[in-house]
């Protein structure tokens, strides 16, 4: 039996993803699928030590290997002034180490060979003499006076920055006078986005034309082109960055990695294309991690549960180089939104960034620039307040959530929340979960010694960076361009600056055009991921594609609609003011039969039709969209867990997620993104962590050690929605790609801690492995980021 696929919507609505036609046939073209004539293969030699001085590097045996074409070291790069590169956070990072290595897995040498087997064999022929140095692996000891200095190239301390937000004095006053204050140390441990496709690049430098083409796993092709130009000295117009199909990014593929540059140098030296593909351990050990936030959170409230203020001090572990990828003026990302979804009188945070002998990064894994950490902090603190007041976690939130009439709402740290109906969103989630029934079941179970837990989180995100006035990366304002052209035959080509890594841009963006112009989505080609073929823009991360490039697309389509009106008026020999629009056609007001479809107008616009003076022919438009504000999606999540009292094993029984991301363009894609993010949340809450031992060995360097959740750990998700359009977005949409990753970890943790209520447990850090849960019941929770003993 076959079921006929319904026609795709002429605009918004669920439809199958256009790109899946190739993916489900195995016909995607990922970086490692691309093969060029004469292509060589590169491999990176990495440091076994977390901190060591390099005494000498002997590459002679590797160079003598019959299939090796080049061996590149930091010394080779230094002759080209390439040994160090700028990071997106304004720091510098070693491409290949020259003086010393600063984390385990750091890049030391690069071999270019005829094939990847020979390249890998040759790594074993390189002889590096190291002098091991004492390490600093615990951020909490990084600022001790006797701590080893990671960046002696910069100064005599591991201190990177201090940053604060909010009104310290006012917050302190409120805390001093409050009935109830609670303080707790919370660790959001280091985790890794672990995209299933690791990072890689193919560099092809043509010495005749001077043109450099780089295929790479890039979430941000245009900024990467500028960085390559700065680092490699090739002018921008001679660089083409192509980001082919990408097997997941999650922020891992925003930064520039040494391997990309080594491939470029390898191609320049050998005159042939060089491919470099990272292996799984390299990806986990050396590329952009996420979190590693050591937080001291405090919450102040009245005895009857009115939340007054939140205060937090953060020690941010940035690893050996400050490679966080975020808007430059925000060294702690958007952590300032730790004010959450509540009507606070004051809030203050103070963040100190430090260097340690760990891999660089910090902003990744769908974190919305650190809102993950912010939401976790505030949602745990609210639950702790409920614990101390013996209040119901849902009622306490209802009591304190912002009300619809308070929007737009300027929070205590200055962010302007655009819209929301928080109490309705939470109520819907509670109703879907049968919250009252669950609490009754829990009470009955406790009588029998069962440990059932119910956890709630309510999150507000700030996504869609961002207004150019406030937000830039390395001086590049965070506005995105699009170019839309309707062909004479009525089909269209949309060129966008954002790059899909699985989000479904080829479908969603076509639907935006379809909604505005009435051209069916399957007649609209979306071009992305190629700097020679797309307008400039900052790329896909931080849930910014729909808020920024989606807005640009709608605006460009509306410009085309306006132009089409002029053309239609000329065709019908009426004034433009006499025309009315219905989806896909302009017609004469009062005479609906007299009209011209967008396809007819497109043909006419390319024809000999005489147009009014000043109106150029053809039917195209562009837009550079500078968002007036971020968009603020929100959601209410309810998680139900069962904990085995004898083993500490947690089972997630149910997960209810009600998201409000404004207008949904393709609800099926939105739900798919939410499913993925919820699984992320279960992973982070229960199993994912990159810990290090005191010598600096990475204890999460493979998928045997770094656990990703599987379908077995995930319940059947129960989704719901409320729709509060953003007033600051042309189609009322808000970003959603990271909502569930941001919102779900605290729901899971709150549920587990709730289950442990009979043991008097108020907090334990993620991941809540069986060991951690059991230790929490013993009153001795673990430091989960260190080696266990």
């Amino acid at each position: 039996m076959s079921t006929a696929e319904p026609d795709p919507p002429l605009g918004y609505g669920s439809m199958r993803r256009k790109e899946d036609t190739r993916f489900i046939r195995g016909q995607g073209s990922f970086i490692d699928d691309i093969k060029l004539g004469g292509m060589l293969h590169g491999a990176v030699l990495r440091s076994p030590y977390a901190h060591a001085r390099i005494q000498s590097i002997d590459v002679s045996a590797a160079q003598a290997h019959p299939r090796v074409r080049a061996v590149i070291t930091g010394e080779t790069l230094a002759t080209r002034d390439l040994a160090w590169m700028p990071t997106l956070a304004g720091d510098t990072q070693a491409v290949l180490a020259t003086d010393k290595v600063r984390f385990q897995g750091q890049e030391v040498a690069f071999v270019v060979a005829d094939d990847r087997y020979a390249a890998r064999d040759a790594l074993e022929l390189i002889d590096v003499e190291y002098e091991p140095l004492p390490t600093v692996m615990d951020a909490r000891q990084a600022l001790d006076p006797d701590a080893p200095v990671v960046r002696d190239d910069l100064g005599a301390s591991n201190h990177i920055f201090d940053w604060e937000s909010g009104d310290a004095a006012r917050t302190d006053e409120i805390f001093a006078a409050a009935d109830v204050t609670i303080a707790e140390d919370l660790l959001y441990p280091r985790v890794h986005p672990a995209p299933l496709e690791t990072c890689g690049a193919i560099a092809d430098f043509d010495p005749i034309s001077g043109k450099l083409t780089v295929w790479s796993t890039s979430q941000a092709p245009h900024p990467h082109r500028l960085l390559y130009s700065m680092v490699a000295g090739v002018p921008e117009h001679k660089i083409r960055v192509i980001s082919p199909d990408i097997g997941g990014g999650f922020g891992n593929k925003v930064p520039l990695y040494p391997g990309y540059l080594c491939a470029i140098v390898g191609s320049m030296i050998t005159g042939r294309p060089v491919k470099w593909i990272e292996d799984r351990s390299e990806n986990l050990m050396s590329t952009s991690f996420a979190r590693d936030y050591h937080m001291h959170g405090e919450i102040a409230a009245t005895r009857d549960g009115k939340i007054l203020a939140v205060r937090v001090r953060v020690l941010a572990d940035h690893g050996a180089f400050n490679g966080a990828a975020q808007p430059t003026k925000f060294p702690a990302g958007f952590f300032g939104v730790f004010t959450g979804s509540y009507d606070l009188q004051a809030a203050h945070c103070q963040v100190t960034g430090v260097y340690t002998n760990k891999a660089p990064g910090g902003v990744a894994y769908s974190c919305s620039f650190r809102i993950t950490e912010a939401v976790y902090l505030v949602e745990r603190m609210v639950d702790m307040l409920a614990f101390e007041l013996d209040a119901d976690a849902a009622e306490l939130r209802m009591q304190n959530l912002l009300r619809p009439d308070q929007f737009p709402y300027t929070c205590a740290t200055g962010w302007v929340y655009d819209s929301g109906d928080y109490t309705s969103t939470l109520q819907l989630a509670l109703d879907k979960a049968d919250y009252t029934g669950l609490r009754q079941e829990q009470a009955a179970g406790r009588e029998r010694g069962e440990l059932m837990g119910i956890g709630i989180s309510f999150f507000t995100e700030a996504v869609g960076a961002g207004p150019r006035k406030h937000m830039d990366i390395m001086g590049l304002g965070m506005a995105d361009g699009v170019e839309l052209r309707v062909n004479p035959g009525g089909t269209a080509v949309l060129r966008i600056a954002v790059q899909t890594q699985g989000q479904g841009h080829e479908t969603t963006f076509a639907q935006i055009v379809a909604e505005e112009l009435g051209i069916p989505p399957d007649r609209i080609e979306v071009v992305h991921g190629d700097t020679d073929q797309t307008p400039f823009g900052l790329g896909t991360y931080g849930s910014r594609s729909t808020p920024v490039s989606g807005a640009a697309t709608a605006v460009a389509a509306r410009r085309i609609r306006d132009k089409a009106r002029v053309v239609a008026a000329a065709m019908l020999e009426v004034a433009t003011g006499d025309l009315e629009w219905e989806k896909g056609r302009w017609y004469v007001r009062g005479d609906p039969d007299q009209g011209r479809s967008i396809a007819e107008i497109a043909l006419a616009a390319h024809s000999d039709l005489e147009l009014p003076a000043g109106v150029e022919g053809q039917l195209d438009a562009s837009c550079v969209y500078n968002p007036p504000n971020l968009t603020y999606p929100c959601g209410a999540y309810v998680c139900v867990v069962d904990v085995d009292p004898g083993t500490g094993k947690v089972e997630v029984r149910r997960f209810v997620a009600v998201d409000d991301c404004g207008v949904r363009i393709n609800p099926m894609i939105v739900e798919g993104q939410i499913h993925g993010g919820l699984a992320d949340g279960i992973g982070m809450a229960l199993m994912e962590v990159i810990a290090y031992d005191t010598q600096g060995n990475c204890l999460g360097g493979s998928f045997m050690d770094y656990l990703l959740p599987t379908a077995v750990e995930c319940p059947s998700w129960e989704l719901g929605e409320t729709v509060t359009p953003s007033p600051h977005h042309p189609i009322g949409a808000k970003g959603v790609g990271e909502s569930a990753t941001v919102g779900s970890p605290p729901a899971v943790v709150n549920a587990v801690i709730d289950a442990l209520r009979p043991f008097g447990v108020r907090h334990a850090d993620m991941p809540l492995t069986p060991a951690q849960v059991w230790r929490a019941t013993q009153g001795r929770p673990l430091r989960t980021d260190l080696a266990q003993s």
Partner: protein
Amino acid sequence: MQVPSHVEYEKAKSVEHALELLTRFGPEARVLAGGHSLIPMMKLRLAQPETLIDINGISGLSRITVADGELRIGALVRHGQLLASAVAAGHFPVLRDAEQVIADPIVRNWGTIGGSLCQADPSEDLSAAFGALRAIAVIQGRDGSRRVPVREFHLGPYETVVAPAELLTELRVPIAGDGSGSAYEKVSRRVGDWSIAAAGAVLTLSSDGTVTEAGIGLAAVGAGHFVSTAAEDFLRGQPATDAVFGQAGQVAAEHCQPAADQRGPVDYKRHLTGELTTRALRRAAIRVRARAGGQTV
């Protein structure tokens, strides 16, 4: 991308051929069965054998049979095959319990019983299960075969009594009478992960409910030969009650030597060993009683 170093490949056509190849290529040759441990170790270059001797084409090593009062499991039997075997589960539910929680279906479809034992990973579930069952390993050399109790099979982590020119061909488990039952309990951080701790229990009860023989297998907690003889000694002659099983769990916990790792600290692993031993014993006892009553549990 992870790629192994250079390796030669030979395909064995029979046990004799495999032994001949093993003799010819010497100690730097490795037997390739399911390859689910060996190949990843080669890709990580933790293992760099000079020659792989592929035994997957050998017929006669993939059978599960009953003969001479023994359950006989060929070394090339796949995990999935043992999991699905009604004969094996009928006699020794501990095997099905253990197989249900070993790795994932993809690994179980190709990973072999013999390979699991020969890999001798300290966390290997089947080593604990067969240890609890007091199984016998049949090891073939060019001069004939020998029978080695599984409790003497392992010399240490990743080390067994199988010599370089020998091949493990079969596991044999003496079939016990009606008064026996068995079970396996395991906790891991996530499906497919190695055990944090796991315990297998094999009980033989007299008609009055006294433990006449017990086998306690432990994985991942540093128990010598994957068994807890202390807990077994404690149980013999005791009444099969929950209280006694709780005490036996305590004995097992005290006598194992877990090492801390990211799966958990020592105190938790010890606690878990006790808890799981107790649970496995309870379930094994329930199965003994159910069997006496003509049921399967």
